[in-house]
């Protein structure tokens, strides 16, 4: 899809998706492969999200937003990543899925897109299931912009929370200047990777002298901290920072 055209969401059109695959990356992270069944196509742009209609007993379905985690070149389906929330109605629904259900969704929604023409350096900062949006950007744009300097910082708590490494490695094999780092806030002593919070990683690379666009997705506190650093301390132009927060 060209950058100028943004699909118009139709709130009344309910798209039906069958589940093709359920992947449990960790006990807290579940990925669903959804295939469209009731329409010829589902058009979206990388960075957008859908509203999952969660059935609620004796009432209207509860709507929950989830970023699409796959390329926007596919028109007949996508992947969604879910993080388990103990009291979440959608978590309960998603973790109860057996694999033969049909899911109802509306969309696409959202206005955080990959900025084109892109800057020389593109930095992704995400936590939890925030990788969804950034993975969609990378998968959708990698053939068009293979030589950009991509940096992805993926914040999780423990080693056991690390997921999606095989998928990131697959991207790395096709993008010569793509590096990714897991940043663990509560690692064990044996962890040799980055420690702390993703916002601490800003000091690890040069973004003041290199044209850079920042994309953030995930924890609101992380986004607030990074924005404070970039806007108030470094004086970065607001048009170079794009964020989608969820807590």
């Amino acid at each position, binding site marked *: 899809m060209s950058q100028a055209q943004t699909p118009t969401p139709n709130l009344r059109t309910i798209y039906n998706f*069958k*589940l093709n*695959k*359920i*992947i*449990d*990356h*960790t006990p807290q*992270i579940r*990925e669903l492969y959804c295939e469209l069944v009731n329409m010829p196509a589902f058009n979206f742009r990388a960075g957008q999200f859908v509203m999952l209609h969660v059935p609620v*007993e004796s009432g209207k379905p509860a709507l929950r937003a989830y970023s699409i985690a796959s390329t926007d070149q596919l028109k007949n389906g996508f992947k969604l990543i879910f993080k388990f929330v103990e009291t979440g109605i959608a978590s309960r629904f998603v973790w*109860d899925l*057996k*694999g*033969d*259900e*049909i899911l109802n969704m509306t969309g696409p929604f959202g206005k955080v897109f990959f900025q084109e023409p892109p800057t020389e350096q593109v930095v992704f900062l995400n936590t939890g299931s925030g990788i969804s949006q950034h993975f969609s950007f990378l998968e959708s744009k990698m053939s068009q912009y293979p030589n950009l300097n991509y940096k992805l910082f993926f914040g999780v708590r423990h080693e056991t929370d*690390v*997921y*999606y*490494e*095989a998928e990131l490695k697959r991207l790395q094999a096709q993008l010569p200047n793509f590096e990714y780092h897991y940043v663990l806030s509560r690692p064990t002593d044996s962890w040799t990777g980055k420690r702390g919070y993703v916002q601490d990683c800003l000091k690890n690379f040069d973004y003041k002298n290199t044209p850079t666009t920042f994309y953030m997705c995930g924890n609101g506190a992380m986004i607030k901290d990074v924005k404070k650093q970039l806007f108030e301390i470094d004086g970065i132009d607001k048009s170079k920072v794009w964020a989608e927060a969820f807590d």
Partner: protein
Amino acid sequence: MIARYRGLSAYNKAVLQLILAGSIWGLSFICVLWALKDFSTSTLIFWRFLFAFIIGEAVLFLFNPTEFKNSMPDIKLSLLSGVALGASLLLQTHGLHFTTATKSSFITSLYVVLIPFASYVFFKKQVKVSHIICGAIAFIGMAFLLNLHSEKDLNFNIGDLITFGCAITSTFHIMFVGAAANKVKNAFRFNTYQTFWALLLTLPFLVYEMNAKHIPIWPSAVELRSVLSILFLAVFVTLIAFYLQIVAQKTLTNSTASLLCLLEAPNAFLFAYLILGEKLIGFQILGIILILGSSFLSVFIDRPKNGST
């Protein structure tokens, strides 16, 4: 062994739970044979379900009074599956007056073929090609297992029609359990009341049969083995195995669950071979292989994939 079980994924646990339930149901065939020496079919169902209900309620009340109190909504939730279970028992029992046990078992097993379609029609589930193929293979496996080709009369009579009704209610039973499984507060309580509703449904027919055939509610002479068989049926087959089915169906699709439930049949033949010394011929072994193969193929295809880290 318990530590290894605890380490399994929810899906693998569910598969093991239904395999265990299938084994218990398979063993129930021998207990039914022993109990029928003193009891009639209808009084056997009555005592089995009554004992199960009383024991189930007493166990929960004594050992987990909080759950006993909190799980009241399960009484209502279990109504549909209880009615379907009771109807299955009634129709199968009544059908046996007009058809053979072999044909009855074969027709009842039609639920494995019906479930993918019925789940689509009534619960808007996907119709998966794998489920249809596995169901069809298992159904063919049943024909071999039951040695159907040696049946003298393969004509479809009224008994077969009634038993076909049992296949339909069995289909609904599995679908109702599947739909309720993730809503139940306590699977044990749900099962106890499923038993209760089934018991209530069968009660008028029991009274009718007792009057019509002058059958005593409790036989005048009864062997200890018959009573122990009924107790085994109440505790293990009704309380434990059906409880396992409900817990397993929290995770498994209706179709995979139905294939694993069908393991009852090969298990019954295997236990008859091991305990009663009954012979298994080549065709029957092929039938067992087909049923086991289709069950495990469905389990394999449906499994949630583990992501690499």
